[in-house]
């Protein structure tokens, strides 16, 4: 299935979860400082493992940067 992750198309196996996608991203912080939204809905960290992705999902994975 095709999932858009931070604007990049990714081919994922069926059953892929938010947790598995985050783990696959280089540079993703282990603990605090990262958050995920799917189509404008924030997915809390506690639900990453249980949230299965669907074909066509759009994920935004964000971290802290300098700003403001």
């Amino acid at each position, binding site marked *: 299935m095709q999932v858009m992750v931070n604007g990049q198309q990714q081919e994922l196996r069926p059953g892929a979860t938010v947790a598995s996608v985050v783990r696959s991203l280089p*540079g993703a912080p282990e603990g*605090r400082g990262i958050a995920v939204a799917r189509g404008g809905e924030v997915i809390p960290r506690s639900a990453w493992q249980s949230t299965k992705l669907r074909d066509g999902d759009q994920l935004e994975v964000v971290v802290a*940067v300098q700003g*403001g």
Partner: protein
Amino acid sequence: MTEPFVIAGRELHSRLILGTGGFTNHDVLAAALAESAAELCTVALRRLDPAARGSILDVLDAAGVEALPNTAGCFTARDAIVTAELAREAFETDWIKLEVIGDDRTLLPDAVELVAAAEALVDDGFVVLPYTTDDPVLARRLEDVGCAAVMPLGSPIGSGMGICNPYNISIIVEQARVPVVLDAGVGTASDAALALELGCDAVLCASAISRAHDPCAMARAIRLAVEAGVLARSAGRIPRRRYAEGSTSMQGLPLFESSDTAQ
């Protein structure tokens, strides 16, 4: 050290909040942070960049400074709300510096979207610190929907033009029942001092420090200016008047007769 002020029940001892935008690297940021003595400093949220080296959160943790996430780059209430929710999840804080920009050339806030986003976020339990214009009516509206502070601009973000309308800032201070933080426009130390002299509780400052020729020296200068401003405010300045008022008594002034006029 100046008297603490309180936002949403939290005592803050430093009246300088540092914005982290514009620093050339994390080392310069860390050094400026130390000079600024700030306790809070803003961070933004962006897509994870696999090429990025080091996290800004490590810099803040090492300095013992807390992150104040912002919604920089948001142009609608909806985007700002989702960004605030992401920030709460990422940083485990309910505090949010709310920015909803209406125009990408001036970066001025969109008043309508700002109030809508502020109201929704307050209802959702956030401690909302909105970046706003220097309009006293808008500041009151933001306070009325439950914002924990109001953060009027002195002049546009990054413009360094200082406080363009000190009269409006004074009115905002007079009427506010929540802390007032001057956010945006500070170009140098005297601008920060003026903000505190006008009665603002604190100053939020990024570009003036991060883009100064020597960011560390400017961080120190602005920290001292903020302290000076607080002292000057409490000391009570003299009123402005149109004509001079001599400070030296005229009593006992000696008279010198010129030899030309003497008979």
